[in-house]
């Protein structure tokens, strides 16, 4: 199958973020970057599908400045065959604008499946995937935690609050990948060497206007420091007293 995976470069979330002097971005100094977690699962899912059901091709696409080539190379070293950078000075805040550019690239690609992460871990929007599907007129299963593809059809599980849906659709289709799907493999040394020779095309991103703009970024208010009530079962009585008299939740 021909599978496209849209991947985003994001900073490591374990960082203690600081806000840049502009007030509209995080300070990039010292940040480490990787593929967004769910995008990594999406690459893995695509590779496994093609390994099991081959022959096929996995194409990875990332929109952004030249630094995104790092993440594209990583996906190539995991096993993707080909990469495309949709070049832009910066990644827009507006998901619709990102979706337009990705849809323009994907439109005539002849893909059987187009994968996205359920959400990018930095923007946390979960909008780009279903928007692209809508623009391409394709069926779209969002936030799937298991996926089965056979004879031109897909079946997926979507977890809801306290329930789940099993959905069925025909290919070509868009799927956004959630928890439950396989974690990204580590590139092997051989994979890293091979990736250097794999094609990485660069094209200008066709971004439209943006009508969602970033005004400000700030750190959330810190919670007031709490206290350790005590150690072991002996501290329970004091905890329950505090929950009753101070926090008034009992």
């Amino acid at each position, binding site marked *: 199958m021909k599978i496209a995976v849209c991947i985003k470069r994001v900073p490591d*979330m*374990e960082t203690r*973020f600081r806000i840049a002097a502009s007030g509209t971005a995080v300070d990039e100094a010292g940040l480490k970057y990787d593929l967004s977690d*769910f995008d990594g699962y999406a690459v893995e899912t695509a590779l496994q599908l093609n390994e099991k059901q081959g022959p096929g091709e996995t194409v990875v696409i990332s929109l952004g400045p030249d630094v995104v080539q790092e993440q594209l190379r990583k996906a190539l070293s995991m096993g993707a065959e080909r990469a495309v950078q949709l070049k832009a000075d910066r990644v827009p*805040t507006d*998901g*619709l604008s990102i*979706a337009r550019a990705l849809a323009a690239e994907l439109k005539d690609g002849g893909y059987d499946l187009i994968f996205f992460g359920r*959400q990018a*871990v*930095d*923007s*946390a*929007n*979960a*909008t*780009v*995937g*279903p*928007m692209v*599907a*809508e*623009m391409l007129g*394709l069926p779209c*299963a969002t*936030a799937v935690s298991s996926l089965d593809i056979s004879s031109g059809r897909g079946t997926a599980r*979507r*977890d*809801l*609050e*306290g*329930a*789940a*849906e*099993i*959905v069925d*659709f025909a290919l070509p*289709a868009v799927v956004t990948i*959630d*928890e439950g799907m396989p974690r990204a493999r580590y590139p092997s040394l051989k994979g890293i060497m091979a990736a250097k020779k794999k094609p990485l095309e660069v094209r200008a991103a066709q971004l439209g206007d943006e009508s*969602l*703009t970033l*005004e400000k*970024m*700030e*750190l*959330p208010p810190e*919670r007031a420091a*709490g*206290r350790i*009530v005590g*150690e072991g*079962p002996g*501290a*329970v*009585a004091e*905890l329950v007293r505090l929950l009753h008299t101070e*926090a008034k*939740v*009992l």
Partner: protein
Amino acid sequence: MANTFAFAESRGGALRRVAFETVSAARALADASGGGEVHAMLAGAPGVASLAAELGKYGADVVLVVEHAGLANTNVEALAATASARIKAGGYRAAIFSASAQGRDLAPRVAAQLGVSMAADVTSLELAGDAIVVKHPAYAGKVIATLKLTGSPAIVTLRPGARAAVEAAKDARIETVQPAVDPAASKLVVKEMVVGGGAKLDIGDAPVIVSGGRGLKSAENFKLVEDLAAAFGNAAVGATRAVTDDGWRPHSDQIGQTGRQVSPELYVALGISGAIQHIAGMRNSRTIVAINKDKEAPIFKVADYGIVGDVIEILPVLTAAVKEARAKG
């Protein structure tokens, strides 16, 4: 003065709490704009119209009822087409969906069909001149972004629980709306609904959440967590990803960045380290209690009260003490 659209989510013939939240948020926005109307869309199998009056209680002036046998299960394509057509025809200033699993699936499709931008998972929204300004937690909840939507209509999804529903009694008029496309023609079909959790309180509704992590050591030990929840009487059980990954609890119990985002009055974290992705889902709880054997565990940094110790040993004592406190009243 502009009218505001709200999508009122239902499942299995019952309104979900988030339906009242979106209607209530739309009411506040309409009032702030000088008193436009709130139009709430309610879709489902025939009979769903009987729920319309409940939406009036939270400030809907008009309930747009879409009844069709093909909407008994979620039919996201039919809902997106119908909502888009109505939003376009209605000239609304804003359309508010929930950032629930269904809303997150639906709203981006509507935005794309209308060709307008949207803001996702917002914790607040307000009018600022011609624009709508929202707050949106990003970077695993470590950063709060203020975003401005200048397009019209502005589409937003509202984080469940971020904004309590407020009653504002209206005698809602009912308007019947036909599906904009044939629900039977959808390319994506829900074949089966798997309903879990039974009659127990949902994590999103519970005033108290007792949540277990890997420190519980086994699926069997979650019995101790359930006992504590039962002692509170108004509690639901949550879990970390470590726990849902190991299959000790269903995925739908997961709290955090990619699980449910909750803000109960009391959150009890049991044997949970406090990874940033977990904290992203519970840091807005009013009171947080943590029990962990490691006094350096990051969970203690967000907890109001902590006990250092073995959770397996402490839980039965805590359950008994909570029972006793509640019996006293």
